[in-house]
């Protein structure tokens, strides 16, 4: 109960952080965790303050200070938490672990859900079984109550790429049972960059159906079942040499909840079929499918005792990741070339963790959390194992690791001020690609990557701090984090190895730098001129360096946005400017080049008429042609786009 209450307050704060001002934002933020950022996704309500409610999840996440979304096309952007690639954070759906099935990171976990599936995303800096932090996608679900059937329908259209989105949701509530079902369909053609150039292979089509049901067993306990079926087809990746014919995720869980105790079992299966059949000219035709299945459980108990507010968790999961590649020879009659790019890697993981929030004084809290996990990896496939022994003749077929973590944070909250300072230690095992990948082509630096099964755990020591000042009219939040990573995993060129991919520059093998440092900071400020006008601002910057590496790749330069919103009765409007300074801290070894700065402007307006909400707007109104640090192979971003979203509640 306390948890949900706290969540609600958090949500309120973060609506403010996300430039979607809420009137009572400053009034009540006690016990807010400043190291956590909450992205409100879908409120199933027409009071939605988001500029574009039917945005993709990626666009919602992109607005969070802690996240960058690395873009390989219009679809399935890869979340970089605190400036670090997706291997360094753990993304869960209601606590469930999911392993992507694409060797080329074309299907991050976030690509298998829709905004309608989710209520919010909790992004937590550092802590968790990770280096950079954790991201939990929280499912949207109903509650028990008076018998009632409600729903919503929505549709959206965007001129650029002729994007269409259509869908709906139904909720049924009784005192003993609730069910929620939602359906979303998205379809987009190729988008046009600023200036009007078509970006080929940027189309996609996505279907998503999700259902969740709860049944009250008795006054103490309830059962919940949840299912997501997500299917994307004909997804283009303009920054890559291949597209995706099918990306399918089936994500299921059953949970038993008894007061503060929740136990869940889950299973998910991901199929990802990469192909190049839409590309007219290729060096060689190939198929690169991948499969990932994960089964797991988690059990969480939480409670209060005197000044303690504690939580204990035990969880475990099993994953099998397999991917292969078949290349069809250009010489007639020659046999197909086949290899396992992920050699059937089994991951067994078990973990216990706990956290305690202790009240030191009315204004001071300390949160201590820790955990330990055991990870066991096995290379299951014989051919896959033998392939890797070409590079590692003495390779062990299985590997067991102990992964530890500990963090502590002090939080002060009084009147206009709140601040937090925390320190964390975390470890992670190499990912499937880093440990066992086999000739995985990176189209940015144009190298084939070979995994290294003999690497140590990567470790991180981090400091996180945040400061919040708020009055009725003004609020500002400054946050920063500094990560010192030990045994930092990165692919480095290895002389003497011959590239497999035609046209590749060479082969990189994963190795470990003695250290890398990443610094992140962000400033959010908001001022309310009066009941109708408010002004929100955001500035962010990151810096990444490593042993013998001047600049880590894909690190955000100074980025800013500033928006003025006006609302009166049923009408609201806003104008936003956002942009970045020039990128001069780039990594040439990764294929990066300097980038000029840019600024783009968006406008939107909304009108609410009873149960109908209409939002229209224009993005990049001056049709600026630009590309950012997060654009793979520097593909240009979308040019001018005019959109309309209609939401109807019933």
């Amino acid at each position: 109960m306390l948890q949900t209450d706290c969540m609600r307050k958090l949500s309120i704060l973060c609506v403010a952080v996300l430039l979607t001002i809420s009137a009572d934002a400053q009034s009540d933020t006690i016990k807010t965790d400043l190291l956590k950022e909450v992205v409100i996704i879908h409120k199933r309500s027409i009071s939605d303050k988001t500029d574009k409610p039917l945005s993709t999840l990626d666009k919602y996440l992109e607005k969070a200070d802690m996240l960058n979304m690395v873009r390989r096309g219009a679809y399935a952007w890869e979340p970089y938490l605190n400036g670090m690639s997706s291997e360094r954070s753990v993304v869960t759906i209601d606590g469930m672990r999911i392993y992507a099935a694409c060797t080329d990171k074309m299907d991050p976990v976030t690509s298998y859900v829709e905004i309608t599936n989710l209520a919010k995303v909790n992004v937590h800096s550092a802590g968790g079984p990770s280096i950079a932090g954790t991201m939990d996608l929280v499912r949207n679900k109903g509650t028990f109550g008076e018998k009632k059937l409600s729903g919503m329908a929505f549709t959206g259209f965007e001129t650029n790429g002729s994007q269409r989105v259509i869908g709906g949701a139904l909720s049924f509530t009784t005192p003993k049972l609730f069910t929620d079902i939602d359906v979303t369909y998205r379809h987009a053609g190729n988008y046009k960059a600023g200036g009007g150039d078509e970006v080929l292979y940027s189309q996609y089509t996505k279907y998503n159906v999700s259902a969740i049901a709860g049944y009250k067993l008795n006054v103490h306990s309830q059962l919940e079942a949840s299912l997501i079926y997500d299917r994307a087809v004909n997804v283009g990746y303009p920054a890559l040499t291949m597209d995706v014919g099918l990306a399918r995720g089936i994500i299921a869980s059953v949970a038993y909840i008894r007061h503060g105790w929740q136990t869940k079992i889950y299973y998910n299966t991901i199929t990802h079929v990469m192909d190049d059949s839409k590309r007219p000219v290729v060096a060689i035709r190939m198929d690169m499918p991948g499969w990932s299945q994960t089964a797991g459980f988690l059990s969480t108990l939480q409670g209060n005792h005197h000044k303690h507010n504690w939580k204990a968790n035990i969880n475990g999961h099993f994953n099998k990741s397999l991917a292969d590649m078949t290349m069809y020879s250009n010489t007639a009659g020659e046999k197909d070339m086949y290899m396992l790019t992920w050699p059937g890697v089994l991951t067994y993981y078990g973990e216990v963790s706990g956290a305690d929030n202790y009240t030191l004084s009315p204004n001071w809290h300390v949160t201590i959390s820790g955990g330990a996990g055991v990870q066991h990896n096995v290379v299951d496939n014989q051919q896959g194992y033998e392939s890797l022994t070409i590079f590692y003749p003495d390779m062990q077929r299985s590997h067991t690791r102990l992964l530890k973590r500990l963090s502590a944070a002090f939080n002060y909250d009084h009147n206009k001020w709140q601040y937090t300072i925390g320190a964390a230690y975390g470890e992670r095992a190499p990912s499937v690609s880093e440990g066992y990948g086999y000739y995985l082509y990176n189209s940015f630096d144009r190298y084939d990557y070979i995994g290294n099964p003999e690497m140590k755990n990567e470790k991180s020591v981090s400091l996180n701090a945040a400061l919040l000042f708020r009055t009725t009219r003004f609020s500002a939040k400054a946050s920063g984090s500094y990560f010192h990573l030990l045994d930092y995993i990165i692919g480095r060129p290895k002389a003497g190895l011959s590239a497999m991919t035609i046209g590749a520059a060479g082969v990189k093998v994963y190795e470990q730098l003695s250290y890398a440092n990443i610094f992140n900071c962000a400033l959010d400020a908001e001022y309310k001129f009066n009941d109708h006008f408010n002004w929100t601002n955001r500035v962010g910057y990151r810096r990444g360096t490593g042993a013998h590496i001047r600049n880590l790749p894909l690190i955000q330069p100074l980025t800013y946005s500033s928006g003025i919103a006006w609302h009166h009765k049923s009408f609201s409007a806003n104008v936003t400017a956002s942009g970045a300074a020039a990128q001069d801290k780039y990594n040439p070894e990764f294929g990066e080049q300097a980038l000029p700065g840019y600024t783009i402007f968006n406008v939107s307006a909304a009108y609410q008429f009873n149960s109908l909400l209409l939002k229209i707007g224009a993005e990049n109104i001056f049709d600026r042609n630009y590309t950012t640090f997060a654009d793979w192979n520097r593909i240009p971003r979308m040019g001018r786009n005019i959109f309309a979203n209609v939401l109807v509640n019933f």
Partner: protein
Amino acid sequence: MNFLKILFVFCLFVSCTKKDDAVVTNDLDGLTLATTLSNDTHKVELYTVSGKFQTGYNAIYVQIKTAAGAIVNNASVSWTPLMHMMGMTHSCPASAISNHKGYIVFQMAGSDDEYWDLTINYTIDNVAYTVTDTIAVSESSKRVVQSFTGSDNNRYVLALVNPTSPAVAVNDISMVLYKMESMTSFTVVDNYTIKIDPRMTGMGNHTSPNNVDLTQGTDKMYYGKLSLTMTGYWKINLQLQDTTGTIVKGEAVTDTNEGSSIYFELEF
């Protein structure tokens, strides 16, 4: 628990019965009759894995039967393959036959006009016999034998023995190397090095790491390690290096030189 007990007992039973089974090994397992050479007294059966003779290295199992069909196990056998060309005849490298087994390296295939025959001389109980007949030698689908003149003016015959079933792995590779002393005499070459450079010509001449050049083993064959990073067509570029370290045949593969003048082919 009961189930486990039953399972345990069952396992014991299964493992016991397995132990009792005598392991029968048959020399002819996996072999197919390629040809039979007959004279008045005996039938000499020659078996190979493929059931035929092909250019390159042919492991051959020799079995002599009486005309009545009884297997003769106490014969001492030798053989001479001979190629009848339009204007000349020549032989090819052939091993001694020991315990029914030997090998012949055919440098070329037979045709209607040019054909191989095989003479088998054998002695049973101090009585010498002989049988000669033509044999069909077909061209291997892939290049597995190279016959060439080195820069030292010697004529060499080099043949691939293994891998016969290549895998995406580090494969054991072996070859036999002969020097042609005369049209009918071939001798094993000792202490050379056979350098290998496997390439996928269909993949931008991709090569694999951690290959080991072939050196001579105690049984006179040459042994090395061959890494194959994927299935498909592989060209094994070769260089022959003599005892002084001089390359007598073959060229290194470089950015400007796609392949060596001597090579073998594998496809799987």
